[in-house]
């Protein structure tokens, strides 16, 4: 018994040491974001000389932080809401209709998961471009793209989950006089909440952090997202590490806040997404 206790304590110490090691990059960004340009040069590892937050307002201004934060929020939230609604609707009729067509459509969604973004990127930007659909540089354009790219995995996850829920409840609802739309809204949507959380989390992390797609279709400064804004500090001529560190911190803080509040759901969501 005693031996086991000692082993556990050793394990815990190793774990904590690793945990601290894992946090070093965060420590580096936070402390250096509070230093002056000179202070970073002479002492990169230590704590800041004085507790100064003056880098933050300047970094916020340079990356137009509030604007890019609100763009990221609008794009992520709208994409997720529509993605959840549309892909759950589609999966529901695919599960409840057992025909060759519904099988083929499901297969198409699943097969498309193998297509890397690079393979469709050039024709996509071309199709959404000025002389065609004219949706480049619009929030609506990128939201449609996220719905399209997110639908494969979402339909797959919803389909797998819906297969396991009993038909009886829906039948009872229709006997009670619900039309299909009402049945879907009042019966199905509440039942699939767990998988909706998973779909929202997996797609949310991806959409929020996505860089390549926005860099191709959001050239307009007014609608750029946080990753695009963060890129500003690392352009050809900026070597202002103190501002860059504040900028990176600004980009990281919203995610950490979200993580603290939604931790339980995030871990659960990732587990159920990973096992599929």
């Amino acid at each position, binding site marked *: 018994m005693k031996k086991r206790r000692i082993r*556990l304590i050793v*394990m*815990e110490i*190793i*774990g*904590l040491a*690793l945990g601290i090691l*894992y*946090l*070093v*990059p965060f420590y*580096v*960004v936070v402390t*250096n974001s509070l230093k002056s340009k000179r202070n970073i040069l002479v002492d*990169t*590892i230590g704590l800041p000389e004085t507790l100064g937050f003056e880098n933050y307002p300047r970094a916020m201004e340079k990356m137009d932080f509030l604007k890019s934060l609100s763009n990221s929020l609008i794009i992520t939230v709208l994409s997720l809401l529509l993605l959840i609604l*549309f892909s759950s*609707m*589609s999966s*529901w009729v*695919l599960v409840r*209709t057992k025909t060759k067509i519904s099988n083929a*459509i499901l297969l198409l969604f699943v097969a*498309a998961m*193998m*297509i*890397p*973004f*690079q*393979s*469709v990127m*050039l*024709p996509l930007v071309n199709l959404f471009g000025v002389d065609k659909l004219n949706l480049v540089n619009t929030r609506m354009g990128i939201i*449609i793209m996220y*719905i*399209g*790219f997110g639908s*494969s995995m979402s*339909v797959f996850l919803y389909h797998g989950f819906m297969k396991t829920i009993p038909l009886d409840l829906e039948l009872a609802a229709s006997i009670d006089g619900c039309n*299909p739309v009402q049945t879907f809204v009042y019966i199905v949507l509440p039942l699939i909440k767990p998988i909706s959380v998973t779909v929202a989390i997996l797609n949310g*992390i991806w959409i929020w*952090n*996505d*860089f*390549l797609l926005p860099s191709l279709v959001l050239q307009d400064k007014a609608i750029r997202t946080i*990753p695009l804004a*963060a890129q500003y500090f*690392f352009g050809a001529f900026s070597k202002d590490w103190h501002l860059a560190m504040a900028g*990176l911190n600004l*980009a*990281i803080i919203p*995610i*950490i806040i979200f*993580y603290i509040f939604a*931790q339980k759901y995030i*871990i659960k969501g*990732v*587990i159920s997404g*990973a*096992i599929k």
Partner: protein
Amino acid sequence: MDRNRGKIMNKKMKKHVLFWSFLTPTLAAFFLVVIIPFFVGIYYSFTDWNGIPGKAISWIGSSNYSKIFSDEQVIKSFWVTIKYSLLAMLLINVIGFSLALLVTQKFRTANLLRTIFFMPNLIGGLILGYVWRFVFIKIVPIIFNTDMNMLAKSSTAIMSLAIVSTWQMGGYIMIIYIAAIQGIPQELLEAAKIDGANAWQRTKAIIFPLVAPAFTVSLFLTLSRSFMMYDVNVSLTNGDPARSTELIAMEIITKSFKESNFGEGQAQAVLFFVIIAIISIIQVYLSKKRELEM
């Protein structure tokens, strides 16, 4: 009887309308964004398309494809991608599995540690790459008391990419392994303990074989993710030094936009799809086979 038939027809029609109206929004976006560009892209890969609007596109056969195999930079990128992917796959899984073994022990801070190890996964690759750029350029030389910048030499730059990926994805893979480890029946471990098996013997004889399906999934997941990696590549090394750390995903972008050679970039992208598809199919096949064995 006629009335009855009418009713049935009506019901069938209604079902049909419901089916298609519930599918249309998703299908429309999906076709517009994925399916149509995919097939148009295959067509473009056989043309001299250069992305200039209004310019006529003409069919040039397979010459874009044959150019790929004689393009030194492409071949270099391909090898570097393989090297990086194998290294990242190995590191991520070793670290991920070790972390999982560690945090499934029953000590008080295990849950806190899980939270910490998973955290980098939520931060975008671009941001992470920039953070680590600072660490590699400014912090590492001080800690190890050296002038060497790991990002300046191609072999160490590849290593740096793998380290950052491990920091980013290790926690994700850890979660998969935790789920697998927790799925092991406790009685088995207890019985082994009673029979006198030590910790290493239990890990080897019980934990390893029972988490094997998770290994298959994780290995291929990390492999395909590494193969497609782009954002960390851009922010950490940006392909430097001398384009020696430019992975395939980034090479396609350079070829298309910087060299304005859309046709050739697209041909690379199509081949890229073929490679990813092969990896994915093997993954699905292996995990299905595992499922049957279980």
